[in-house]
């Protein structure tokens, strides 16, 4: 496994094809996991939670970098560690309730009233859960194309990955989104919840 010399090389690999993404992820795990874990465990002595936070943080970082959302204001390592710390804090918020406490009461997002009331947020969560199920019902090709698009991969690059013509990828992307929408709209619960929201 060749080492990366600087952040730019890692960013470039994370924005590349699956193989280069895996290469970058492997390198990050080998080089940065230990110091990030140490940082997390200094704050909270909970190794499984720190491990989860690292994986979540690395996935979020790779996703953001992959779709060009990382602006390069900080070093990539600092960016990763701050995401991991935030993920760790998120996990603390979602700690299971102790006996006698209803868990639904505890799993409430931050600052009620600032980004919507509790009920609206709960409805949105429910819609997202149902939409995730709808996504799983899509065919494999559709799921691959939509996932690649969500990761910020350009249609011409997707064409190379899935061995299709550029125009075919564009058409298929559109058709897959349509299919996804149809699956969503076929679920009356989703539509009812949307109507309750708006």
């Amino acid at each position: 496994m060749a080492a990366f010399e600087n952040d730019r090389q890692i960013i470039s690999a994370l924005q590349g094809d699956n193989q280069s993404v895996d290469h970058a992820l492997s390198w990050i795990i080998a080089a940065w996991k230990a110091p990030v874990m140490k940082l997390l465990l200094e704050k909270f002595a909970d190794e499984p939670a720190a491990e989860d936070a690292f994986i979540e943080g690395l996935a979020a970082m790779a996703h953001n970098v992959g779709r060009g959302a990382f602006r390069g204001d900080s070093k990539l390592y600092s960016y990763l560690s701050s995401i991991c710390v935030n993920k760790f804090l998120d996990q603390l918020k979602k700690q299971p309730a102790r006996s006698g406490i209803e868990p639904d009461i505890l799993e409430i997002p931050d600052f009620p009233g600032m980004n919507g009331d509790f009920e609206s947020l709960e409805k949105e969560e429910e819609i997202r859960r149902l939409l995730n199920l709808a996504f799983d019902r899509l065919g494999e090709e559709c799921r691959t194309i939509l996932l690649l698009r969500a990761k910020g991969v350009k249609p011409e690059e997707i064409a190379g990955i899935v061995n299709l013509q550029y125009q075919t990828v564009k058409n298929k992307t559109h058709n897959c989104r349509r299919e996804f929408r149809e699956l969503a709209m076929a679920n009356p619960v989703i539509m009812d919840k949307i109507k309750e929201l708006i």
Partner: protein
Amino acid sequence: MKNFDRIDRFLKNEMSEKERQSFLREMAADKELARETKLQQLEEAVLEDQAVLDLKKRIRSLQENPAPESPKGPSGKPRRFRIWPWLLVVVATIVIWQYMIHDPVDPGNFMQNQDTGEQPDPTPEDEKQEQPLNGEEKESETGKEINEIPDISRGRPQAFNDSPQFIYQGPDWPPKENIERGLSPEENLGLLKAIRAMEADSFILARNLARGVLKSDSTSLEAREVIAHASFLLKDYKTATAQFQVLVDSAVPNYVQEWEWYLLLSYAAQWPEQKANFTKYLNLILNDPEHDYHKALLRYYTGRQ
């Protein structure tokens, strides 16, 4: 799907300001368009979720089958032996050793004999803040007389040295019969949820929920209390201090002494910056044998049981 591209541009913030305003007006007048926009926004969120989920699976798989290569430092270069951290350790050890040789008295021992050890001259500010205790004899619960004048000119009491977090024992939640105080149902619910979150040690959540309550009722002492305790436990001592100070200043009978105690702990945690305030509340509690936390403080203070 007829509005798909427009909505997509709206969600990706690719519209001009004029176009955006027009779209917002259109949504306000057309509920169907607003619903379609919401649905598309949630679909995008789900696709993002799925992309991250996929990455997580790959990371787990890569962790289970790591590439055979020795890890390297964050810079991408092999880790080198660095001499300066070791040098720092050696210098620090020498400094500490020198200090111990010249000043054998434990600087953190609150009840040190004043005749031993050299003491630096107190600053005028220290003199002003460090109100002496009553010279009168006080009795601990064991009946032993305590007549030493506290000297914290060099350090806070030993008991507070490791971390005031060890001394802290939170109230039983809810700390008082506050829920039926006449709050509106929404505030009641928010507070109840905040207290439940405290009970479950979800301090960040508790603090956020209590902030929500405080936003709708800035006079809610209960919400402040949750924020203060949660902040203390999250080691955000500045916020804890500010909130406990408001609570103490509210001078609510029956609870003010408890808040003074927690305020003392919060100041102790910010030693030495808050030494003056720490001293103020330390003396306040030590000088008041009727204070709810007088005996507890004496216990920490003297180490006597």
